[in-house]
C-alpha cells in the first residue's frame, strides 16, 4: 500500500506544535500537524483569562485569543502546513513511521523528522469515592464551561492552589458558580499570589495544610470530608470537618504526556520538578531517538509562553537539520534562547531550570 510521507510531522496542535510548524514553514519545510481534538490550540482554547508572561509571547492577551493568533499564523501558510484534526497518533515505530486513528480507520504515515508536542495530562488524586459523579478534573471543568457553556454545579470546592486551581476558581465565580473553598495540602499557596488575592477579595478562602479525605454521596457527590495536614503531609486525627457541595474540582498538577516516546524506547527520566516522566533531550531538543524531537509541556510542564518559544526554537533547529536553515537563523536562535532564560529566571521558573539541570546535568538544555 502507498504510504503518505511528510518531511516533518508535528504531533499536537497546541501552542508548541503550532509555533514549531510556523518557523519550519518560514525556513522552507513543509509539515503535517496531527491533532486529536476537533480544533487546534491545545490548552489555550479553554483559557478565557489574560495571560502572564512577556508581551513578546502575547501576555495580557486572553488564552483563547492567543490560540487564534497562532492558528491564523498556520492558516496563512496553507501551502506549507497540512493539518489533520480529529486524528490521534496511536503508534510510533522505528523506521520513522507512525499510525494514526481517524474515526475507525488506522493509517500509517512516514516522516523524516518528528516533533512530539503532545502537552501534559492532569494528575489524579487518590481518596475514597473519587469516582462519584460531580468530581471533575480542572481541565474537564474548563472544557465544560468555556468551550461548551455548561456549569459543573451550583457549589464547588477546588482542590489545589496552583495557578490552574486558582484561575479555574476565578472562572467558576465569573460563571456564577459559588466557590466554597480552595484546599491546599502544602503549607503555602502554590500559584501566583496575585491570583490568590483576586479570589480572597471575592470572599473565597484558601485553606493551606488541608486536603480531602473522602467524598460522600449516594448516586452523586453530596459532601466531602476535609482534614488538616501536618508538616509531614499526614492527616491530623480529629481535625476533620464536612463541606456540603455538589461539585469537586481537582487540580493537583499536570504530568508530561510522553507515552508515545516511551513506546518507541526513547530514554525517559522521572524529574518531579518538570512534572514527572520526561524524555532526555539534547541542545537541539532531540530525544535519544534520532530525528524525534520534543517541544512544550511534554518535556517539562511550564507555561504557554515557554511552550511557544520552545516550539519556535525546535522548529528552527529541526529545519536546519533537514537542510533548511532559516535566513535569520542566528538572530532567532539567540533571541529564543534568551527569552527562555528570562522566563525561567524567577523563583517559579527556577524549578524548571533546576529540573532541566537534573535532566542533563547542565543549564538550559531544553
Amino acid at each position: 500500500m502507498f504510504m503518505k510521507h511528510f518531511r516533518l510531522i508535528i504531533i499536537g496542535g497546541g501552542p508548541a506544535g503550532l509555533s514549531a510548524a510556523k518557523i519550519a514553514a518560514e525556513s522552507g519545510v513543509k509539515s503535517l500537524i496531527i491533532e486529536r481534538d476537533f480544533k487546534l490550540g491545545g490548552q489555550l482554547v479553554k483559557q478565557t483569562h489574560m495571560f502572564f508572561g512577556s508581551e513578546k509571547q502575547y501576555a495580557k492577551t486572553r488564552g483563547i485569543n492567543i490560540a487564534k493568533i497562532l492558528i491564523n499564523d498556520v492558516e496563512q501558510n496553507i501551502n506549507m502546513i497540512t493539518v489533520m484534526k480529529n486524528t490521534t497518533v496511536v503508534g510510533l515505530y522505528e523506521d520513522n513511521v507512525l499510525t494514526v486513528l481517524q474515526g475507525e480507520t488506522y493509517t500509517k504515515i512516514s516522516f523524516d523528522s518528528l516533533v512530539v508536542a503532545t502537552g501534559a495530562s492532569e494528575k489524579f488524586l487518590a481518596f475514597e469515592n473519587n469516582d462519584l459523579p460531580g468530581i471533575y478534573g480542572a481541565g474537564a471543568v474548563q472544557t465544560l464551561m468555556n468551550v461548551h457553556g455548561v456549569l459543573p454545579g451550583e457549589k464547588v470546592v477546588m482542590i489545589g492552589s496552583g495557578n490552574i486551581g486558582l484561575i479555574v476558581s476565578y472562572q467558576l465565580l465569573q460563571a456564577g458558580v459559588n466557590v466554597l473553598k480552595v484546599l491546599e495540602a502544602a503549607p503555602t499557596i502554590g500559584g501566583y499570589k496575585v491570583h490568590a488575592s483576586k479570589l480572597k477579595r471575592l470572599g473565597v478562602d484558601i485553606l493551606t495544610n488541608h486536603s480531602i479525605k473522602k467524598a460522600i454521596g449516594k448516586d452523586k457527590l453530596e459532601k466531602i470530608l476535609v482534614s488538616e495536614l501536618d508538616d509531614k503531609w499526614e492527616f491530623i486525627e480529629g481535625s476533620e470537618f464536612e463541606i456540603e457541595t455538589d461539585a469537586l474540582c481537582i487540580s493537583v498538577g499536570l504530568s508530561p504526556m510522553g507515552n508515545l516516546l516511551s513506546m518507541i524506547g526513547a530514554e525517559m527520566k522521572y524529574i518531579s520538578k518538570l512534572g514527572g516522566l520526561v524524555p532526555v533531550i539534547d541542545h537541539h531538543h532531540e530525544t535519544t531517538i534520532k530525528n524525534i524531537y520534543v517541544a512544550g509541556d511534554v518535556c517539562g510542564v511550564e507555561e504557554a509562553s515557554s511552550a511557544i518559544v520552545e516550539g519556535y526554537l525546535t522548529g528552527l533547529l529541526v529545519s536546519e537539520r533537514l537542510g533548511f536553515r532559516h535566513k535569520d537563523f542566528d538572530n532567532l536562535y539567540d533571541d529564543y534562547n534568551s527569552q527562555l532564560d528570562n522566563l525561567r529566571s524567577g523563583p517559579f521558573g527556577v524549578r524548571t531550570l533546576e529540573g532541566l539541570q537534573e535532566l542533563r546535568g547542565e543549564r538550559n538544555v531544553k
Partner: protein
Amino acid sequence: MLNKTGVPTLEEIKSRFPKKGLLIKHKAITECYEEIPCNPCATSCPFNAIHIGEDINTPPKVDFNNCVGCGICVYSCPGLAIFTVEEHSDHLRFKIPFEFVPYPKQGETWHGVNRNGDIITNVDILKVSITEKYDKTALIEVKVDKEFIHDFVTIRRIT
C-alpha cells in the same frame, strides 16, 4: 500571610503607596509583591511610569512623577493587581478593574470590599469604562470614604 491566605499585610500595602501629597492626582498602586515572569503593566504604560527592567521576574515599581493615573495598566494587568487612587478633601476616588457581568452602572451604590473579602462600606459608582480595547476588563471609578484608603480594594453588588 500573603503566602497562606492571599492577603498582604498593612506594611506591604503601604509600601506601594506614594509619599503624602502626591495623590492629588490619580496614581497607580501595584499590588504585585512576588517575583513572577510577567510585565504587561510596564509595557502597556504609555508614559513609561512602570519599571520592571531586563529581568521579567522583577516586581513592578511605579515612578509617581511620570504616572498620570490614566488607568491603562489597571485593565492590562492579568493579575488584576493594580488600581489608581486620588485624594480629595472629603473623599477618595479609585479606578479599579472589574470582570463580572453585569457591570455596575454610573450612579449606582455598591458595597466596598477589603482584601479579606469583607464588606466595609458603601461606595458610589462614578464612571464605568469598557471598550473593545479593554478586552472585557472594565475600568470602574468609584467614590470611597477617606478612612478606607488602605482597605478598599473592590466592589460587590448590594443584594
